[in-house]
């Protein structure tokens, strides 16, 4: 419970009937951590993200975010305490332009929506910050485009820009490379490399090149349990990991 830990998960468990989707999971993320979460389909990776963000309520265990107990509060309250995520499937506001997608997140972070008497200068500030966030993700040039017109790669970058606009302490990246053609995946790689070093990041990804390149530590999940945790080189060499996971799914 020291200030050194950004996210501390202890004994997190969840069952759907007889199916144990999370079995006493422990996980620590230090500030600046780059942890990759891998495992075969159905291992419980997305369930873990849903437990962390509060979409699913755990049966047992605790989650601490920067020392605050968050497993008993609502998803939106967790976001305000500094837990941001990106989505595997697209949830962007497709009718709005790129800038407004980020500006709305800035407005929520600042709590402007309940205080709308002086909204004109507030909203202008939100849009200005949004442009800066887009520039950080090197998509500043598409600020005026409607989201529904964007290619998939740029939508993924926008997802990350929105999450960063929330000034998170912990960022959960749920398959940031999903659906991006391999010719464009270097754009995602470059954007991830530029994320601020003080944020703790947990990345779930099927693209092994991306995970092993980005993560400094890898957690392998199988059947709702943490099987191994270690440096990428150790994980890649681990015979048990290779047996249950890499050997089967890596083409």
């Amino acid at each position, binding site marked *: 419970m020291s200030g050194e830990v950004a996210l501390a998960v202890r004994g997190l468990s969840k069952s759907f009937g007889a199916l144990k989707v999370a079995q006493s999971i422990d996980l620590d993320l230090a500030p600046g951590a780059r942890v990759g979460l891998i495992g075969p389909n159905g291992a419980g990776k997305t369930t873990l993200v849903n437990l962390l*963000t509060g979409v699913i309520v755990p049966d047992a265990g605790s989650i601490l975010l920067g020392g605050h107990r968050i497993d008993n509060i*609502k*998803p*939106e*309250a967790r*976001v*305000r305490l500094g837990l*941001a*995520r990106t*989505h595997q499937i697209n*949830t*962007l*506001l*497709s*009718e*709005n332009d790129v800038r*407004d997608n980020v*500006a*709305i*997140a800035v*407005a*929520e*972070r600042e709590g*402007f*929506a*309940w205080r*709308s008497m002086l*909204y004109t200068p*507030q*909203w202008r500030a*939100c849009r200005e910050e949004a442009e800066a966030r887009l520039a950080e993700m090197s998509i500043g040039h598409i600020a005026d485009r409607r989201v529904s017109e964007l290619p998939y790669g740029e939508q993924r970058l926008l997802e990350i820009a*929105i*999450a960063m*606009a*929330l000034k998170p302490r912990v960022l959960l990246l749920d398959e940031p490379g999903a659906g991006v053609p391999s010719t464009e995946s270097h754009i995602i790689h470059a954007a991830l490399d530029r994320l601020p070093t003080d944020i703790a990041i947990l990345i779930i990804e099927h693209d092994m090149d991306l995970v092993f390149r980005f993560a400094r530590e890898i957690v392998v999940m199988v059947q709702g349990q943490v099987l191994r945790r270690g440096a990428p080189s150790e994980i890649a060499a681990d015979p048990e990991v290779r047996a249950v996971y890499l050997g089967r799914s890596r083409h």
Partner: protein
Amino acid sequence: MGELLVRPRLLWHALPWVIAVAFYFFAGGYLSLGTQVMIWILFTLSLDLVLGYAGIVTLGHAAFFGFGAYAAGIFCVRVTGDPLLGMVVATLLTGVVGFLTGILILHTTGVTFLMLSLAILSMLAEFANKANSLTGGDNGLQGMELSPLFGQFEFNMFGYTAYVYTLVVLFLWFLVSWRVVHSPFGRSLDGIRQSPRRMRAIGTPVWWRLVAIYTLSAAMAGSAGVLSAYAARFVGLSVLSLFTSGIVAVMLILGGVRRIYGAFIGAAVYYLVQDYTAKLNPYLWEFVIGGLLIVVVLFLEGGLMSLIDLMARPFRRSTKA
């Protein structure tokens, strides 16, 4: 350049109000029709906030229009005929009803919500029907005697006072709506309509936002009901009917959702078509309105407002209203 462009925009915004004021002087026998149009503009605007902006698909909005009308009528008969106090009390009460029913049913979405909103409307209608001593039942609420506005202006059969009163109330609610939809709060509603999941992911308390706009919209619809009670000095059971909910939805779709002025166009066109075709043949108008609705829904995404966009394009740089 930028400064010059401000003026034509302001002229566009002034246009509906200039027409409304001019109508007062030139309407003659049509003045009460003008009052009706403005009442329905206000009601349609209130529906636009929940259905258009927040994406809450309701068929129960007549509950608030009807509640406001009955509240104002009963307050007038039982307490005092002061039209300002009556407006404030009935509007606030309707807001409370919106808040309580919203808390009850806004957990749900889609067809479930639609059914629950209908159920609340039906319950209110049945209550108004049965509570004879309070509402007059199916004879309607009679005996409303409004005091003159500011002790000067009588609500009488010529309808001058009702017209101006309605215009002022509509304008005030228009200003509120304008602020709401352009504020970060309004933008978050638009976001909730498109993707509640996205909004939760950026920390939006989705349910509270919906309760807030539902309450505000209910109060607004209540005000429209109050105005209709004052204009007629009578309240009938039809204000609480599904048909009333249906008409306001037709006006909104006809004019264009999420456009503010869509409510103005939709309600005005509906009444113009109704008035004109009913003169030709009393059974024709619903047929014409139905046909118009089909044409708009099939060919004009964005309602009649999108036609105005097309016509206005040569004069304006921005196409957003």
